[in-house]
């Protein structure tokens, strides 16, 4: 999205001190909110950046890709130096109140910029660390819900790799999801394992980096967010998404796509919880198959030419279960170098049960029977086992 003027959903134009649009203006300061002078009108994304440590946001602020015609509002970037130690309790109890006080004005500013068109918030965070889970997913989301009761809140959450990342990730994710079921309208779960697999097996990236994974997430979000993603049933806001086609950019000019070629595998991916169209279990034919995922309604998002044919193909998604809506991607057209047909399906599915069960059951296992492992780490920041984990009984422990 290099041209912000075409995307009013995501950008606003405001006078910003020190905001400039060219790539050659001075590098912004690395700490605090000190600003160079001279207000100029500039496009800023409708967003607030937040972390409990400095390294990530300050390197984001220093990014100046050529051709970008917008920049972050310097007053909407906030950080601390302590970090949250991969500890939900540290993020929630220690950073929550003070950080909220800091970002309140930025949030209000962005809401004001939206005027009557304000619809709600999208909170982007991971589930495994301490900041995304405890601060953003739990505390901030709770406060936004309290302050803006009518707003739609969507949390886009990154599910950790199953293996080898953050040891206490299951604690953090269970604590966060327990909160989110109370506060969020839709929790869009994207799995790092899936993103990694898409990169390696479909996008021909031998050694995917987080930047590669994030490109997929960003692309997907830009196309999904303009639509209503809130699932119909209250009490289970978790949704996930599958998309296709997945083609390396270099191969796009040599690929001819048909809507059935895009939609048939997508349907099967959704039915069998498979992130790519590689190795799909085609023998799972209908919802009656015990291996098939149960869906409670879905939204099919189509983007590209020949949507009439597409809508025909999309009807097959009714087989997933629940009410199925088919919508076109209004905001984004396929850019040069992107496939001319693209589709995604998003909604609440029982596929989320397995990883959730894994997370929850790992946590449960660590608690019963025997002593509460890692308890002293959470207790250090004010989360006694009972109060912190009490809300998580909905998922099993």
């Amino acid at each position, binding site marked *: 999205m290099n041209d912000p003027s075409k995307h009013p959903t995501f950008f606003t134009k405001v006078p910003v001190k020190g905001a400039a649009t060219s790539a050659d203006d001075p590098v912004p300061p690395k*700490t605090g909110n000190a600003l160079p002078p001279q207000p100029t009108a500039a496009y800023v994304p409708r967003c607030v950046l937040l972390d409990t440590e400095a*390294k990530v946001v300050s390197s984001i602020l220093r990014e100046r890709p050529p051709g970008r015609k917008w920049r972050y509002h310097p007053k909407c970037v906030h950080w601390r130096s*302590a970090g949250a*130690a*991969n500890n939900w309790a540290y993020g929630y109890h220690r950073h929550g109140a003070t950080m909220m006080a800091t970002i309140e004005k930025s949030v209000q500013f962005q809401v004001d910029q939206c005027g009557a068109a304000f619809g709600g918030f999208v909170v982007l965070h991971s589930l495994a660390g301490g900041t995304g889970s405890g601060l953003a997913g739990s505390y901030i989301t709770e406060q936004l819900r309290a302050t803006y009761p009518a707003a739609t809140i969507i949390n886009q959450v990154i599910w950790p790799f199953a293996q080898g990342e953050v040891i206490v990730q299951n604690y953090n994710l269970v604590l966060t999801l327990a909160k989110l079921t109370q506060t969020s309208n839709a929790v869009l779960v994207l799995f790092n394992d899936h993103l990694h697999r898409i990169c390696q097996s479909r996008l021909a990236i031998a*050694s995917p980096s987080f930047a590669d994974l994030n490109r997929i997430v960003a692309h997907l979000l830009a196309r999904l967010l303009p639509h209503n993603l809130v699932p*119909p049933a209250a009490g289970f806001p978790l949704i996930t998404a599958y998309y296709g086609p997945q083609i390396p950019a270099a191969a796009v000019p040599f690929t001819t796509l048909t809507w059935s070629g895009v939609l048939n595998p997508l349907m099967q991916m959704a039915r069998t919880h498979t992130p790519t169209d590689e190795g799909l279990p085609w023998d799972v034919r209908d919802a009656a198959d015990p291996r098939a995922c149960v869906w409670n309604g879905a939204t099919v998002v189509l983007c590209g030419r020949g949507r009439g044919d597409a809508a025909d193909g999309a009807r097959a998604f009714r087989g997933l279960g*629940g009410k199925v809506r088919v919508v076109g991607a209004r905001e984004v057209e396929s850019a040069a170098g992107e496939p001319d047909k693209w589709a995604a399906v998003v909604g609440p599915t029982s596929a989320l*049960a397995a990883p959730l069960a894994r997370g929850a059951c790992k946590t449960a296992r660590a608690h019963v029977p025997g002593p509460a492992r890692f308890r002293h780490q959470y207790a250090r920041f004010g989360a006694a086992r009972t109060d912190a984990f009490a809300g998580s009984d909905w998922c099993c422990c």
Partner: protein
Amino acid sequence: MPQSLVIQVGQCGNQIGSRFWEQALAEHSQTNRKAIYDESMATFFQNIERRGKRRAAVPVGDGTGQIKGLEARGLMIDMEEGVINAMDGSPLRELFTPDQILTATSGSGNNWAVGHHHYGVQYGDHLRDMIRKQAEACDALQSVFLIHSLGGGTGSGLGTRIAAFLADELPDVYRFATVVAPSPQHDDVVTSPYNAVLALRHLAEHADAVVPVENQALMDICAHAGVTDPKADTKPFGAMNQIVAQLMLNMTASMRFPGSLNVDINEITMNLVPFPALKYLLASMSPVAVRPAAGAPAASVRVDRRVDQMFTEAFQPEAQLIKCNPRTSVYVACAAMARGALQVSDLRRNIDRIQKQLQFVWWNQEGWKTGLCHVPPATTTESLLTLSNNTCIAQSFAGIKTRFMKLYTRKANMHHYTEYMEKAEFTDALASLNSVIAEYRQVERDPGPQDVEDDDWEAWARAQVRGRVGSGMNGV
């Protein structure tokens, strides 16, 4: 960015500390060629401008200011003068002002009780002042690293006293102790088992995490790399200390430099210490660069091969900084912290591979914490540090205990200690060590719940959630 203090105590602590500061400067000057005082530099250093007698700390500000003069965030403490005086005239000595140094003249004579009780009391208030002063010079002090040996008198005795002062003065600041444990063979200090056991009890109480290293392991690594001391009967302390210094730099790299998967120092304790008593972290590194280019595979080897080799080596018994074999014991948790141009998929590939070769405790089967820091160490293109909480540490502790008992049952040298402390301190310290050994052994032997299969848990939980989606559907 948060800051850290380094407190080096006794001969061993100060000798390792010297290497640490030397290598820290080398590492930062390599990435920071314009000599800017930035956040990363501010972790371990203050920027001081001097005009005549006036001394002023220059803050990081917008991160573009020049380095005026660097001062270490740390303290040098020894109860004799020799080691610290030997640094006079060296550039390192410039990093410390007189109020960061405390020396006495007679040493602790390899007697823990002298360091802990005699000097601990005599210099207690003074040390607390020194600590407070260093803490006040930080705007976000997060951790303190103590470096000392366990075998002598000053490091083990006064060093552990300082750990208690830190807990008292700076309760929210994480306390890491990098300690050199005496080797079972040819250790030069007769009373080292006493000193080690007495010191370990206080570390158990006051440290958030302890990274013990053994001189025997360091010597073997050096010998393997072809580094020996010219005087054949002495230890090559220079190279050995370089390894320990490198360990500390690798441990803190991710907090000082950018990376795609940062590991802050407080994440180490969070992920690796599931119970307060199980806080001993076994370290290993690959490649071990004890002299330029030693141990580093040729740059011509493909990066992914180099990376895979690095992971394989770091999990070999020979790479561990304690003489032990973690592969035949149980992992409670393991951190793999990489530096250099690695990607998340390099971690995935290697952890999937290595996980199969290791045995993890039943309740932490996927007990991995990983990190990626983009800035490599000064001497190699990439490196891997592993920190594992492994039950094999109980064997090392049991070895120390056996040697302790040999002296203790004969009451050897005991009167030198009881001159400064109650005899009961021996029994208390022994009880503390016994309980650490017992806790690790219990974890090692714990077979896990026999009644519930892993699959049962999952099936049960899945049914719960399926029920949720299903019942939601009834509503539409």
